[in-house]
């Protein structure tokens, strides 16, 4: 990289590509070439920068200039102004919403200031399709160190000391898992990378595989060395084509460099990686279901024990770790367990990647030290609630997590504190809700997902979640009774208590946490037949205030179901039995005569 004076890093993550970042990349390259700057300016595609809210992103190095929402046609100006004349293109810089000032570089952006990027260390820095760029950032140094300077037991000891816990949601100590699998005796063992990221809105694993695939490959090889496996398999959703493509390129390059295959680093250690595609079933993120799916069987969990570490893929000892977990491993080896353990909270070490979504200003991917408060994440990094609305709740842990409220904002979040608060870490989904969100509907939204994604094997999950969903539907329609609340609570506890796998054991969490934290909202739906947030259509009534109505007929003409009657210049009336609550009348009325009751 030394021969270039300047680097233009164009985000090539799935989000930015959806906003034409590929064309942008080509435009920049074209401009550079037309201006004859090819030997001085390098344009590369990188992985995700995380700041998806304002994509596509172009970052200029070495001055860290951070351009947002760049269009292909902006390429000319960036090259002419910034690259050639050294003047930053102000209109493309990020604007601090509080000061309304342009922020010239990423280091001064609120979004990045409190982040600490370990798992995402290379995302947005290197070209994921170029192994040399990975190597230039200490890539494969950890594998070299393990193979040539450490015994498997020493590596495992280092992993245990680091305190790294599984990032897929379970939080099981990674070093311990490796140790257990290393002790199982078998002629063949397997390292499996779980890339079946299934939480709605979560994309940390995808971003890592798209932005830094070599870190996962390197870590899998280290794991293989520790547990005595020569084969690794990445189980990845087929809906992640870009991640698959980059992973394949990375595997090919690693093989060409002798970093996969036989005699790695001149030792007698050998390691190969294979890819298996998942069909997108959420439950296949559960490790036994994942293994069955890899074997070509129906993706459904089986009871543990036996644990995969004893009998997993093809009935051989198998170590399953999540993408983000693996991404942490090379850094731990390079910088040492003590360094890693110095970050984070007492029982949860290191950082965690979260996918911030919902009613928040800075939607995107963030990585923060364990122990960061929800307030810091939502209001500092996330830039607060959209449109100046009031914060209401945040859902962590994906569909199986719980909704936390104002009173939880100052909890230092880690695996244990989130569980204690009635939610969970999960794989790192974080969805923010504002005052307009109806919490009963939110619970129902998540139940819709788990009903859809239950594998159907065990009765409480298969039928119980369906019944929970039906009761929530009833409440949202204003047909719920107080008895339903008792039934809802009882059924939630029974499903948690009796389900076979983690999916059913956590699926009622959204119901229980919203009942716990937003009980009055449930009461409002049942007793008053009102949805306080005005979200439940069945409980809304559009009415026309006679005093304001001038009889312009705009509402009646725009009503799709002819529910509004009234003479021209006369007062109009909405027939509630016919009304479908589409809101067209409210939108069209210029006299503030239509309102929601």
């Amino acid at each position, binding site marked *: 990289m030394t021969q270039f004076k300047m680097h233009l890093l164009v985000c090539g993550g799935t989000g930015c590509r959806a906003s034409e970042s590929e064309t942008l990349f080509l435009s920049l390259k074209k401009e550079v070439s037309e201006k004859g700057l090819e030997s001085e300016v390098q344009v590369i595609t990188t992985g995700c920068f995380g700041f998806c809210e304002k994509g596509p992103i172009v970052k200029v190095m070495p001055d860290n200039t951070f351009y947002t929402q760049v269009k292909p046609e902006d390429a000319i100006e960036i090259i002419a102004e910034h690259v050639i004349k050294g003047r930053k293109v102000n209109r493309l810089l990020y604007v601090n919403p509080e000061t309304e000032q342009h922020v010239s570089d990423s280091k001064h952006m609120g979004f990045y200031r409190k982040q600490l990027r370990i798992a995402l260390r290379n995302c947005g820095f290197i070209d994921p399709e170029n192994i040399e760029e990975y190597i230039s950032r200490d890539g494969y140094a950890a594998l070299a160190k393990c193979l040539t300077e450490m015994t498997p037991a020493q590596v495992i000891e280092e992993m245990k000391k680091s305190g790294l816990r599984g990032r897929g949601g379970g939080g099981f100590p990674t070093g311990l898992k490796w140790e257990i699998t290393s002790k199982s005796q078998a002629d063949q063992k397997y390292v499996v990378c779980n890339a079946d990221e299934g939480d709605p809105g979560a994309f940390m694993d995808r971003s890592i595989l798209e932005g830094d695939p070599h870190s996962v490959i390197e870590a899998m090889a280290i794991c293989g060395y520790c547990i005595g496996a020569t084969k690794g398999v990445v189980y990845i959703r087929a809906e992640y084509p870009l991640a698959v493509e980059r992973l394949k390129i990375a595997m090919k390059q690693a093989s060409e460099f002798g970093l996969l295959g036989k005699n790695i680093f001149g030792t007698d250690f050998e390691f190969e990686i294979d890819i298996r595609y998942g069909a997108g079933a959420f439950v296949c993120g559960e490790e036994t279901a994942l293994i069955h799916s890899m074997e070509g069987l129906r993706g*459904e969990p089986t009871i543990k024990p036996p644990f995969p570490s004893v009998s997993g893929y093809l009935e051989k000892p198998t170590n399953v770790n999540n993408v983000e977990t693996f991404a942490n491993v090379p850094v731990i080896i390079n910088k040492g367990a003590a360094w890693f353990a110095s970050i984070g909270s007492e029982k949860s070490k290191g950082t965690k990647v979260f996918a911030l979504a919902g009613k928040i200003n800075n939607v995107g991917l963030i990585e923060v030290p364990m122990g960061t408060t929800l307030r810091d994440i939502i209001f500092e990094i996330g830039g607060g609630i959209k449109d100046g609305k009031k914060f209401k709740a945040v859902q962590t842990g994906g569909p199986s997590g719980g909704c936390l409220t104002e009173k939880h904002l100052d909890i230092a979040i880690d695996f244990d504190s989130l569980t204690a608060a009635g939610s969970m870490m999960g794989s790192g989904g974080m969805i923010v809700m504002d005052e307009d969100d109806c919490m009963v509907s939110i619970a129902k939204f998540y139940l819709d997902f788990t009903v859809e994604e239950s594998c*159907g094997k065990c009765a409480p999950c298969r*039928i119980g979640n369906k019944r929970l969903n039906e009761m929530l539907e009833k409440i949202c329609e204003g047909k719920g009774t107080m008895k339903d609340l008792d039934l809802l609570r009882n059924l939630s506890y029974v499903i948690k208590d009796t*389900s*076979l796998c983690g999916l059913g054991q956590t699926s009622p969490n959204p119901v229980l946490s919203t009942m716990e934290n937003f009980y009055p909202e449930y009461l409002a739906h049942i007793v008053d037949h009102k949805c306080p947030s005005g979200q439940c259509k069945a409980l809304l009534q559009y009415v026309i205030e006679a005093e304001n109505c001038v009889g312009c007929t705009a509402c009646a003409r725009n009503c799709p179901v002819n529910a509004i009657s009234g003479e021209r210049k006369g007062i109009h009336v909405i027939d509630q039995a016919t009304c479908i609550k589409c809101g067209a009348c409210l939108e069209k009325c210029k006299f503030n005569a239509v309102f929601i009751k």
Partner: protein
Amino acid sequence: MINIKIDNKEIKVAPGTTVLDAAKSVGIKIPTLCYLHLHDFDITNKPAGCRICVVEVKGRRNLAPACATDCFEGMEVNTHNIRVLNSRKTVLELILSDHPTDCLICPKSGSCELQTLAQDMGIRQIEYQGEQSHYKEDTSPAIIRDVDKCIMCRRCEMMCNDVQTVGVLSAVNRGFMSVVAPAFEMNLDHSTCTYCGQCVAVCPTGALTEVDHTNQVIRALADPSKTVIVQTAPAVRVALGEEFGMDAGSIVTGKMVTALRQLGFDYVFDTDFAADLTILEEGTELLDRITRHLKGDKTVKLPILTSCCPGWVNFFEHQFPEMNDIPSTARSPQQMFGAIAKTYFAEKLGIKRENLVVVSIMPCLAKKYECQRDEFETNGNPDVDFAVSTRELAHLIKQANIDFNILPDEDFDRPMGESTGAAVIFGTTGGVIEAAARTAYEIFTGKNLEKVDFKQLRGMEWIRHAEVDFDGTPIRIGIAHGLGNARKLLQDIKDGKSDFHAIEIMACPGGCIGGGGQPLHHGDTSILMSRQKALYTEDTHKTLRKSHENPYIQQLYADFLGKPMSEKAHHLLHTHYFDKSKPAEISE
């Protein structure tokens, strides 16, 4: 041994014992639903999916399924505290909430395990009501799938895949709509289903039942223009009593004959007669092949495989069509009976075959399919009109107000009611080949067989090897029951690794005594053991114990067929097999 405490009872159990078994050993019967353990066959189904057997384990966050949780030192289990009872009841209510409540008219009513469980648990209302999952009904020639009643216990799937290796049934769809079905939810008759009926034999609810032919039988009996005759398979007589509260293994041959006569059958005959006939045909074929083989004929196909079991015939037609020339061409006893009845016996009575109705009472569901096969009919008139199961016969008897338990014993009619002990043991695994050995020995050696019991061929092991000494010539015999085990022997033949002269195969575990049409064993395999024992007892009580000694068989050959394997015998008593490996055309 490890020490555990269940409901405050301190017990010692061996490591690896499940909580369910540990509890059972001290008289605590934890309810189960999906769990099925066929002890004598070492078959276990425990997907831990129904969650009915959940118990509380001290120190554990959630409840544990007793069937799939192993005991550990110091374990403390509570099987019926309020938390457990509430959960168990709620889960059961959930299952019931997605189950039709047409119990009064369900074919499984009275023997449904879900119904019994609801009764035991005192379910009087279902709090959690909601949408029910609906699927299309599937009626095949032998089995009805009413999968609205499927509770996803996966027992059928386990039998179809693990035991039978037929692989037709498996879970499809996800979540609330998941159900056990053939691939793409096609109908059974488009699949490679063998109709062995083992899925029906283990289904706890009314999701899988047989096609009921009792009404057709009742109508035929009421039709004055028809002469209706009946044949009864050997395994029926040692199981029918169970339907009337008798102990497993009760031999009710005489009562069964009386009941059939009271039902109005014009002649009550015995499939055993046809079993003796089968031995003469199949035994002659066996000897012919062995003799040619011993003389050095390289073209002869060995081993010869028995062909009495229609589930097995379907299996090799689907799975090993290239080996269609290895099994004996002899028809099954049911079909031999039908062919003889509609020719020889009809002639004797002086009636047209169309006016003779042949009903067979079978322990088997594949027999329903077999008698509907095109090659077993003449001018559209089948040799066997209706095959009804042991269970259906019990229903017929109950509907006719017959108090079965106090019936006197009567004997079968002649000529086709006479049989030997060799025919009786057709009903168990190892029986056909033992019967064949008795006759083949005497024909091959020309000597009288003193000891007719070939004990080395008996037993319940899945695959058995034995050698029978034909006066200096060792005849190597293989026996398999359960289609998965048959597959192993067949694969060996295909790979050229088999040195057997003859192999007996029965599709169902235990043979016909464990057939898909038998009274339900609900997982108690000691019932099958008792039925097997009873068949061997019935054999010893027979005066004649070798098929070729049956005087009416001798007369049949003298009067009608000529000799075994004659042209007439070939035409009436032998068949050929088809390549069914190609998927049936989809006609939805």
